[in-house]
């Protein structure tokens, strides 16, 4: 605060604050009372007991098994999982595309500049929801299953979605694999820092051991009577077997990636421009190739500069996934709003909705903070 006012009890200040607090508390209490009255008059019991009841309506996309007999709690979990997965995948692809765009925009090549600039201006200035509608329309105007575009007989693209060969690999296998890879990464990193592993063997050994782990999980976690790899086949009017990516999912993912990349690209461009020219020139003078200059000097320095802005952007994109409801993607918001319609537990579900997004925002914030800290410490060591 700008003023360092003398510390004495100022009656006027306390009066103002007291009145303010009374008004705020009064408003909140009156909202709650009216809401309770309204709910009671409709015969809806307050509390979280409804979470155990079964929903009675299905959703068209979920990563865990749900049906119309699933409980509200399970349905909400499925929705939260959908939001997280489509959001994280979107952030991942948007970041990669964004870095490429940023490199194109700052390169000395005029044609690459032009491509980058046109991309950013076009996709940043058109609303995300319009882009989602567009990609959804594209997806649903693809050929019917009978005339599906074949991907060498292994997969098909049709208006029912993208069918790919599926592995007998459940959600838990994915979680185990991810945990295993993270653990392995930590061990190998420590070994290479201690000098017990040659740095150029780091990635090969990570990928090698990871692949073995993948095979083990695939073979041990088998569901009886299912093929190891199932290839989609046209049966009547629909496809059977394989792994289906629904049009709602792919449309939302493409929209978030394409839209997000324009923003992420601009953030990275700012980061690249903030990298001292002297450092890149020094790297070039040391005889590094342009690619090495990018990989070893420019990108690491730029990442440090952009992290705060990037984490804001990530949180923002994560929240933007809620527009998926417009094209029928059952994300957390859609499940919550359907639940409100069906069960009438408005206040409880709104609380859960806020809690869900708070959780997502906090997690992203925490992860970005950890990355920020690690990079900062590394920077100090390098000095």
């Amino acid at each position, binding site marked *: 605060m700008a003023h360092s006012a003398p510390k004495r009890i100022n009656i006027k200040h306390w009066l103002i604050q007291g009145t303010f607090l009374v008004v705020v508390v009064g408003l909140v209490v009156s909202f709650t009372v009216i809401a309770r009255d309204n709910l009671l008059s409709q015969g809806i019991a307050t509390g979280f007991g409804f979470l155990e009841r079964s929903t009675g309506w299905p959703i068209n996309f979920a990563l865990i098994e749900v049906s119309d007999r699933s409980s509200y709690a399970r349905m909400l979990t499925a929705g939260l999982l959908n939001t997280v997965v489509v959001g994280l995948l979107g952030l991942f692809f948007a970041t990669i595309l964004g870095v490429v765009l940023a490199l194109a925009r700052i390169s000395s090549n005029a044609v*690459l500049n032009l491509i980058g600039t046109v991309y950013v201006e076009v996709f940043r200035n058109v609303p995300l929801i319009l882009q989602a509608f567009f990609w959804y*329309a594209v997806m649903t105007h693809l050929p019917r299953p009978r005339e599906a575009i074949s991907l060498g007989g292994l997969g098909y693209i049709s208006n029912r979605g993208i069918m790919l060969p599926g592995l007998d690999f459940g959600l838990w296998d994915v979680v185990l694999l991810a945990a295993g890879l993270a653990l392995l990464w930590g061990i190998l990193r420590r070994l290479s820092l201690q000098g017990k592993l040659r740095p150029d063997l780091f990635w090969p050994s990570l990928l090698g051991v990871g692949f073995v782990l993948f095979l083990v999980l695939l073979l041990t976690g088998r569901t009886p009577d299912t093929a190891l790899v199932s290839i989609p086949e046209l049966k009547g009017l629909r496809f059977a077997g394989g792994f289906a990516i629904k049009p709602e999912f792919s449309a939302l993912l493409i929209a978030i990636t394409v839209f997000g990349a324009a923003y992420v690209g601009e953030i990275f461009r700012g980061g690249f421009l903030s990298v001292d020219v002297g450092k890149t020139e020094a790297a070039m003078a040391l005889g590094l190739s342009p690619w090495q200059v990018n990989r070893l000097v420019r990108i690491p320095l730029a990442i440090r500069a952009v992290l705060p802005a990037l984490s804001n952007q990530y949180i923002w994109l994560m929240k933007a996934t809620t527009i998926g*409801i417009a094209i029928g993607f059952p994300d957390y918001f859609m499940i919550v709003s359907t639940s409100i319609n069906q069960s009438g537990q408005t206040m409880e579900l709104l609380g859960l909705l806020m809690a869900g997004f708070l959780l997502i925002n906090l997690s992203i914030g925490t992860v970005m903070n950890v990355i920020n800290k690690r990079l900062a410490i590394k920077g100090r060591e390098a000095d």
Partner: protein
Amino acid sequence: MAMITDTPAAPPVQLGALRWIRRRMFATWFDGLITLLFGIGVAWALWQVLDWALVDTVLEAESGAACREVSGACWAVINARGRLILFGLYPYEEHWRSALACLAIILVAVCSCIPWFWKMSRLAILWVLGFSTFLALMYGGFLGLEVVTTEKWGGLSLTVLLFASALVFGMPLAICLALLRRSKLPVIRKVVGLFIDTIRSLPLLTLLFAAAVVVPFVVPDWAQGDKLMRVIIAFTIFFSAYQAEIIRAGLQAIPEGQEEAGAALGLHYFGVVFLILLPQAFRNALPATINQVVITFKETSIVTIIGFFEIMASANAAIGRGDWSGQFIEVYVFVGAIYFAFAFGLSRYGAYLEQRAKRADR
């Protein structure tokens, strides 16, 4: 994101066209390869787009059936459904009112971009005039104009109304919130801080949903207003929570001495705030503010989801029924171009303002 560089940029070097091409496109053999490869790609893509948009197109047709006979774009859909897209469900004979109302707001918005109007009193008069013209034309009920209730408002005028009201009502609210969050009184500071952070952590859609669906539950009947008004209020609150943080950042960048000097000159609190702090804060916060304004304009499209018939929803309606459903690309390109024109125009204006502020600094 404004990049601040300490060293002044090198004076632009005048290159001849040939030397420019050489330096920017064919500096090395690899550069040349990239230029050729991507150049051909760009040319091909441009050719495809022009071919689709201009060659073998249908400009007028009774129904979508005619569109299936051509390979190019079927702009007939814009001809046939354009008025639905632009005016939504507004009664057909009264479309001129919607168009005039929309024009009034746009005119007022353009006027407030001109520095001559940058005075509290002038801006206030301008916007009161603009909004009353808009509401009078849209609602009607005088001089024999038919009354059109808000449920029938739609298309571009609704988009423009949402955007303009979020900005005009949200900006003063944002200033209040920013100042309250810097208050010396801890209770006020913390409550306002909690309010701003909560709004910012929620997706806009949930706020709009709460305004449309939940507010009737928690507010007594007499205070509910109509749905459009509640959504405008929610939108305003959303904008002001973000803008408040932007203004606060702008305020924080001002050296403390400024405020103290103002107080030493005997200025009252409001004198210090309005004459010394806010003008500087707005200049500091200009790039972020413009960014937020552009984002707010695009986010108006989200009200589609809660059942308003603004331009995004009317575009979907135009292809949703009847036999035009195959022409979704044309319709989305048309609406996308409208959004682009507004958003791009706003961000160009922002760039101009930044240049102007830089010149003033020198």
